[in-house]
């Protein structure tokens, strides 16, 4: 493999690694036909905001077979979303920086007045 980077060195936790001749051929085949990891992480971020084409989704699936890292990245983007969307509930609990009691009172008073009108 003259000068070609080996995307699957020893200890690769991916489903497909170069463990035998058959796997090596598959890894090289998939490595050539799917986007490189640097591109994959960009595509993965896009996939969080819009639906990818079927072809791209298949390509990503194939890529995961040879790249456990991109698969982890994808999973973690979803975890990040879950984390971020849970923040507001937690902020109230943990934040010391809350509305001052006078501000709260003013808002309540305004609502009360409004009801009377």
């Amino acid at each position, binding site marked *: 493999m003259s000068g070609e980077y080996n995307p699957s060195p020893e200890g690769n936790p991916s489903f497909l690694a170069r463990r035998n001749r058959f796997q090596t051929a598959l890894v090289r085949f998939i*490595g050539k036909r799917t986007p490189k*990891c640097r591109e994959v992480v*960009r595509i993965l*971020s896009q996939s969080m905001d819009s639906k990818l084409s079927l072809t791209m989704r298949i390509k990503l699936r194939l890529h995961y077979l040879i790249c456990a890292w991109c698969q982890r990245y994808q999973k973690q983007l979803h975890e990040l979303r*879950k984390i*971020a969307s849970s923040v507001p509930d937690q902020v109230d609990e943990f934040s010391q920086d809350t*509305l001052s009691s006078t*501000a709260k009172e003013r808002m309540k008073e305004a609502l009360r007045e409004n009801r009377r009108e």
Partner: protein
Amino acid sequence: MTAGGDIPHRPRLDGQPLGVCGGWASRQRKKNVSHEQTDVKYLRPKFRGKSSERSWLCVILKNKICDYFRKLGRETCFTDLEFLEDELSHKFVSQGFWNHETGPLEWKPEAEVVMHRAEFWETFRDCLAKLPQRVADVFMLREMEEMETPRICEALNISPNNLWVMLHRARMALRECLEMNWFKEPQQEGHL
């Protein structure tokens, strides 16, 4: 709406501006309290009781956020696109694959397990604070407010392409920061 009865969501009202947009709200909240009062007063007669009062107030606040950013977008120049410009290129080998020494680690214990811990949220907030303001705003609007991307583009007056770049880099930076400051540290596991 029953006249005279207590507004059922009132206890949540105070917390709501915080929830609407975490960091942004904490900076703007005080400034906005008086505006909210005015708006609530002003808009009250228009409220027909078709939705709950809470969601109605949320809509007002969300629109306020949009207005705020729209104004900001016209006022500031756009240097935040420079943030994380190299997109962690040192983590990839020149052929574009992950460097296997520095590729993403498995998060253990998983985020769901640690999400009830105050220390975790501190770490998350610290990481969020490291992002440039605009990048953090974009991320929060998308992931915390679950605002659709076209709406963010409109509110912040930025192109869809710039938005994607900023979101990608924000996610990349946050993922990295959480991994370095939380998931990588082995002592965390024993604390559950």
